[in-house]
């Protein structure tokens, strides 16, 4: 049987040759799992930051007050219209120049980078969600003696939540994928781990397939969840 396989050319040489797969499973998987752990760390803390920023800025941009609204608009427009990579580079290269010696660890840069970037997208989702609830609900709450914050907290946000959840889940998927940019600044994440293992031995084919598989396993469940939530919303 092994002679049979040995006679098949592309199994012995080329980017997906069997020896390359063997090397990956013997030497590479530890590196990849470590990278995957870093990716999960950056993604979960980044998502937490993105949610906080997104809710605060989303509420600001749906408010009556002009100054918070203008600030929120500026924030969203800046982060949605410039590449994440340049934001990461500003944290990586420009920040230490601005504040002398402020060298953030790359993992922190990753968390801040994806957190602020996806915070802008989540803010838009939150704003749309709040506006879809309609003035009547807010006015009714205010007339019943709720303050603005209380009306938001107890009346508007809980209703907006259902509308907001599916796109927010999609944002979580994008956020996980976008953590891969820190590979470009040697972030030690899954993409970086895969790239450095592949580069050392030239086993790009199998390594990238495995890296892709791990990203897929992280993202796919959330993507399915987003679709379920969407379908549930449409069914109502």
């Amino acid at each position, binding site marked *: 049987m092994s002679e049979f396989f040995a006679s098949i050319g592309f199994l012995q040489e080329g980017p997906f040759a069997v020896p390359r797969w063997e090397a990956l499973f013997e030497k590479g998987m530890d590196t990849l799992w470590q990278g995957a752990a870093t990716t999960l760390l950056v993604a979960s803390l980044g998502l937490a930051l993105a949610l906080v920023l997104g809710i605060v800025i989303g509420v600001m941009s749906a408010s009556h007050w002009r100054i918070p609204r203008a600030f929120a608009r500026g924030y969203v427009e800046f982060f949605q*219209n410039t590449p994440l*990579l*340049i934001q990461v580079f500003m944290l990586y290269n420009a920040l230490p120049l601005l504040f002398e010696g402020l060298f953030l660890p790359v993992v922190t840069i990753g968390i801040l980078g994806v957190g602020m970037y996806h915070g802008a997208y989540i803010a838009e989702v939150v704003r749309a969600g709040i506006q879809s609830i309609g003035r009547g609900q807010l006015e009714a709450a205010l007339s019943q003696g709720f303050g603005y914050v209380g009306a938001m907290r107890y009346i508007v946000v809980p209703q907006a939540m259902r509308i907001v959840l599916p796109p927010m889940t999609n944002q979580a998927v994008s956020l996980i*994928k*976008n953590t891969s940019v820190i590979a470009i600044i040697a972030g030690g994440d899954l993409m970086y781990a895969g790239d450095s293992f592949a580069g050392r031995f030239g086993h790009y084919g199998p390594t*990238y397939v495995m890296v892709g598989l791990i*990203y897929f396993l992280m*993202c796919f469940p959330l*993507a399915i969840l987003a679709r379920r939530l969407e379908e549930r919303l449409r069914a109502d």
Partner: protein
Amino acid sequence: MDAFMSSPVMDMLTDSLLWLGLGRGLILTLEVAVLAIVLSFVFGTILGAMRYSRLPVISHVAGMYVEIIRNLPVLLLILTSYFVLGLPAMWAATIGLTIYTSAIIAEVIRGGLNSVPKGQWEAARSQGFSFLQSMRHVVLPPAVVKMIPPIVSQFITVIKDSSFAMAIGAYELMFKGTILAATFWKPEQIITIYIVISLIYFTINFAISTFARRIQAKLSVGRGSIGA
């Protein structure tokens, strides 16, 4: 004023070599992005149409492609196009972006078509409209209005994500800017370069999104007045 005009930042900003370098980078960025957008639109439409095929094999293949690709980072697809497919950097960036964006466009098209109630389609067919006529006059107009915002925001994403090509050494705007920044040593100069690059990306993307918002407003108004 003189002191300001002769500051290191002004010296840098009045040097034509800086703008020549950034201009070259911008051209490559736009080449990669526009090509990827056009190709993604073509393949995305084909994939979107395949998902409505009556042959289960075809719709399943398209569905699986979309499911797999949209759960992978673009950077991985760009690196794969470069290192595994062995394409030159500019093409690797273009193809990597196209592989990803086609899947997103296919989903957007499907979402847009699904948003038109089935009843409208059946009504059109029952009134003697052909397949193409029903598409053209009944299903597509409202569907396209729904598709425009996500498609435009995806195109802006392509322009932004083309900066990932720096990872494979394509001299697009981001990489060009980073290289130029490394030739200066005063902090304010380096920071200024990063601000300039951000502003270039910002201007292009902001113009596109503003334009798209206007078109969409026009289209939705037009539809409203026909109905009324």
